[in-house]
């Protein structure tokens, strides 16, 4: 039985899957796992597009929010409360084309019967949009004084509400750009913690089995026994009120991660348990490999793609969790803003019905979450070249 040259490898990492597809496997084996992943990933157009969208979101909102704002995010304007979004036009009302886009300013009136603000565009006046023009001053990247903005009207006194304004007359677009910094980073902090806790305890539990598995499983079970939002809400409500908003931010991230690792942990455990039963692990065991060696060389690499995928896919859950908590008023606290805190104003349904543009921050939540989901999905497909 030792005619090793023609004996097939007993079991490949993907086990039985290869039984009937020898020709594929032959080919696949000639590339490294990482090359395969890279190739598979770059074939997924949707995932690449999602990655591109995320890069734009992070550059504009996390790194240079002021550069891309058109108004200071906290600047109130009593004369422009609940102004609807202005249409960016190339054609004027008479049908003449302008290469430079422009907006019509509003005339505002208070309707004394309904007590609602009535905005009508003033078609006599065109306000042209300029790119890289001067506006309010700020520090680019946190230390470089400048007043250049990506776009704006000629005078910064003119109102320019792409997404309309809120109840204080603040520019929703600029607020979204600033709020993105919190919403887009809260997930990353939380996910880092989730991955560390989840993969560590999941691997330990699945591999060791016995009493250690029992204890970790009980802890996970207890954590999972708390419904997410109520638990987070209770913990968030317990954060000291005198904390700075940055501490609240980290507090919220940790709170979300503290429950979320349990789900990942359970899944990693399942994967690891099936790997533990597989013949190559038993083979390594018999070969005298230590537990630590097997965990590091067989379990983690095998569960790794799974962990990365779940990690990416749990960022959306984090973003949604933060949004939900802030929507309830229990999350990010002023002066910090997140997409969720912007949405807090939407809690009053009759307001939303009259001024639906105050929900636009929600659109950005959806875009970011969708992008992370597509990206995570791309990672998943790429990480598992044998599945397709």
């Amino acid at each position, binding site marked *: 039985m030792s005619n090793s040259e023609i004996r097939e490898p007993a079991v490949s990492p993907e086990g039985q899957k290869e*039984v009937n597809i020898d020709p594929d496997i032959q080919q696949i084996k000639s590339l490294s796992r990482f090359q395969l992943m890279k190739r598979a990933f770059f074939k997924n157009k949707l995932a690449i597009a999602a990655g591109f969208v995320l890069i734009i979101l992070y550059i504009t909102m996390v790194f240079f929010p002021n550069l891309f704002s058109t108004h200071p995010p906290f600047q109130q304007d009593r004369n422009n409360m609940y102004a609807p979004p202005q249409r960016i036009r190339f054609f004027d009302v008479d049908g003449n084309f302008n290469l430079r886009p422009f907006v019509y300013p509003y005339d505002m009136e208070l309707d004394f019967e309904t007590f609602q603000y009535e905005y009508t565009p003033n078609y006599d006046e065109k306000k042209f949009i300029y790119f890289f023009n001067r506006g309010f001053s700020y520090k680019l990247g946190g230390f470089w004084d400048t007043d250049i903005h990506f776009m704006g009207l000629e005078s910064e006194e003119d109102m320019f509400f792409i997404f309309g304004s809120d109840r204080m007359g603040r520019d929703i677009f600029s607020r979204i750009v600033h709020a993105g910094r919190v919403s887009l980073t809260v997930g990353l902090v939380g996910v880092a913690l989730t991955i560390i806790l989840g993969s560590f305890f999941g691997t330990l539990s699945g591999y060791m089995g016995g009493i250690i598995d029992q204890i970790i499983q009980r802890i996970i079970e207890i954590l999972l026994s708390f419904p997410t939002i109520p638990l987070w*809400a209770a913990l968030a409500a317990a954060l000291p009120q005198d904390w700075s908003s940055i501490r609240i931010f980290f507090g919220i991230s940790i709170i979300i991660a503290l429950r979320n690792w349990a789900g990942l942990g359970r899944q990693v455990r399942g994967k690891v348990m099936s790997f533990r039963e597989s013949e190559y692990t038993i083979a390594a065991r018999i070969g005298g490999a230590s537990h630590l060696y097997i965990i590091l060389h067989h379990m983690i690499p095998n569960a790794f793609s799974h962990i990365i995928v779940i990690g990416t896919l749990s960022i959306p859950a984090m973003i949604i969790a933060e949004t939900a908590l802030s929507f309830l008023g229990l999350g990010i606290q002023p002066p910090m803003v997140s997409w969720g805190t912007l949405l807090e104003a939407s809690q009053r349904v009759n307001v*939303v019905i009259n001024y639906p543009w105050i*929900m636009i921050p929600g659109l950005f939540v*959806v875009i970011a979450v969708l992008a992370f989901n597509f990206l995570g999905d791309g990672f998943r497909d790429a990480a598992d070249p044998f599945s397709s």
Partner: protein
Amino acid sequence: MTAFLVRRSFYMIFTLIVVSILGFIIINLPPGTYLDVYIAELQSMGTATAMEQRQAIVQRFGLDQPLYYQYWNWISGFIRGDFGISFMYERPVSDLIWSRLGYTVILSTSTLIFTWLVALPIGIYSAVNKYSIGDNIFTFFGFLGLSIPNFLLALVFMVISARVLGHTVGGLFSMEYRDAVWSIGKFIDLLKHLWIPVIVVGTAGTATLIRIMRGNLLDILNQQYIQTARAKGLKENIVIYKHAVRNAIHPLIMQLGMTFPQIISGGMIVAIVLSLPTVGPMYFEALAQQDMYLAGTFLMMVSFLLIFGNLVADFLLALVDPRIRYE
């Protein structure tokens, strides 16, 4: 099988105890309680008995005693159906929670059924017709459903209904049935209102389940025993439904333990937007007001629902998977 159930039930009780302790600690974390606000209010009204009342409450709940004593005081009341008092409503908690819990259970189970009924067939279709146009469409909508926070979906529903129908779609009952006693009419009225929160709360869960079902089934279809089944000469439909789907459902049942919290949590926050008479709105209000017994009881009850749901899932899993029964 019996041994398995007994063991699971034992775990459930253990989990419940730990959850109640943790829940009580969490609820007591914020400094100060509603009691302070309550007393301040009484005093501002100039009642001479304020101090006496305060003393009575402090004594009844042992608020001057250590936390473990307070916990025991509170939890031992559970057996008698006494969950303490709501300072905010100045009524026993037990008066406030039952109908809200009832509607929460109705909403959650309806949503769960909806999720499965929609997700299973779509998931199977998507896996069997992998990369077909239908699969791609479902995948896209699945992603979208997964990416919209459900309270946002609820808001969109509200705005659309207000603009199109001219009235909003909130609540679980029409005006005339809101305080009426139960009747066929009231039940039908409930069904007329229930479908909106069910869809809103169920969307994310459905999207998740579709993806899981599709993934599982694709994995299973690659298994050797599917080839064995085909080699027997079975019809492709039997191969898929009897041999593949049956195996692909296990992880889904395990997922039940994950879907249920999602539904309950989602339902709580959607309830605020859709003004549903469920646990959500009252719980968040109680949290904000630090009405600790009310908030704590809700947290306990909702967790109990979950734990019970998990037990049911375990039981179902043992029923369909022989490997677990003999573990």
